[in-house]
């Protein structure tokens, strides 16, 4: 009998042979008395060992101590939410951390630069049509927009331009007389009291 057959016998006893291997072994066992004897002896020794090797048990205090310590450990990590909720919160927190880190790493300008502020003002003024009540105010708005756009172009922060029209308005705005807000007739005293 070969070592391989002995190993097959042991694997058959532990239920680890495939049906095909099992059939192959059965054929060998039919042909070989040595293989049959090996299986009988192995089964007998293992069965005797199972039956006669004493099954000592640990002291009940040991089990009580394990449970006590498990309870203490459990208290330390107790979470008042079901696991799916905890997972969702942890996932959201991780995502927020990732996005913040990514923005911080990829951002090359401060979060609130003067140029950003200028862009914001341009956007706000462009959208707030209702804020400007009369033609004079609307004209002033156009001048302010033109000035802001030209400043952005001159500083190289944007390429958007309305061409000559904006440029003309810019020079008009930069005229000393224009800077006195000449579209309103009110004197500073009337305005500020």
């Amino acid at each position, binding site marked *: 009998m070969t*070592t391989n057959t*002995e*190993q097959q016998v*042991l*694997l058959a006893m*532990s*239920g*680890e042979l495939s049906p095909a291997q099992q059939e192959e072994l059965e054929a060998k066992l039919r042909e070989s*008395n040595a293989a*049959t*004897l090996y299986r*009988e*002896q*192995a089964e*007998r*020794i*293992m069965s*005797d*060992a*199972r039956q*006669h*090797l*004493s*099954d*000592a*048990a*640990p*002291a009940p*205090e*040991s*089990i009580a*101590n*394990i*449970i006590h*310590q*498990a*309870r203490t*450990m*459990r208290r330390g990590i*107790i979470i008042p939410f079901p*696991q799916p909720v905890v997972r969702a919160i942890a996932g959201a927190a991780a995502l927020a951390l990732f996005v913040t880190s990514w923005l911080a790493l990829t951002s090359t300008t401060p979060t609130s630069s003067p140029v950003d502020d200028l862009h914001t003002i341009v956007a706000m003024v462009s959208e707030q049509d209702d804020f400007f009540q009369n033609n004079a105010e609307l004209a002033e708005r156009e001048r302010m927009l033109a000035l802001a756009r030209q400043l952005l172009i001159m500083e190289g922060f944007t390429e958007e331009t309305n061409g000559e029209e904006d440029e003309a308005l810019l020079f008009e705005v930069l005229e000393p007389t224009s800077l006195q807000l000449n579209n309103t007739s009110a004197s500073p005293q009337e305005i500020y009291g």
Partner: protein
Amino acid sequence: MDQSDAELISRYREGDIDALERLVERHRRPLYGYIIRMGRVGTDADEVFQEVWLRAIRKMTRYRQKNFLGWLMRIAHNHVIDESRRKRALLTLDEPLESGEARIAHVASADATPCEQVVDEELGSRIEAAVTCLPEEQKEVFLLRTKMDLPFKEIAKIQHVSINTALARMQYALAKLRDILTDDYAAMSRTT
């Protein structure tokens, strides 16, 4: 109805300590028996038993195996190995005894070894003594296979060896037991 190990673990993870208690109760005897037979002389089996369970509890949130007893025995195996390494580091044979005699003189005794005494005992005691005589790796495979009914695939994982090595160790263990318990098992070969 008896709940499976997997169900009890799941309940414990949800905070049910009673489920853990049932799990400890279910596996206390095989684990304790293994510790007694595999632990070195002077090892406090109850202490090791508790330590193995506490290690298992700490790892239980990450438990993904199919065979809980196999997983538990892997923890026990690693713990027993750690303990024996620690004890070996503390005890050197060069160190003399308090009496001044060399420690090594007491290791090899002229008295009959347990393996030679087995003939005078009852079958249970003879088997127990014969198993004690097996080399550690073979004894471990034999115990895991017979007392815990673990498959060789799982035993190989516990011992960090191939399934063929685990099988070979079992073959050697059976051959040695047959030799030691020759009066009990030789009759089988004569009658067949």
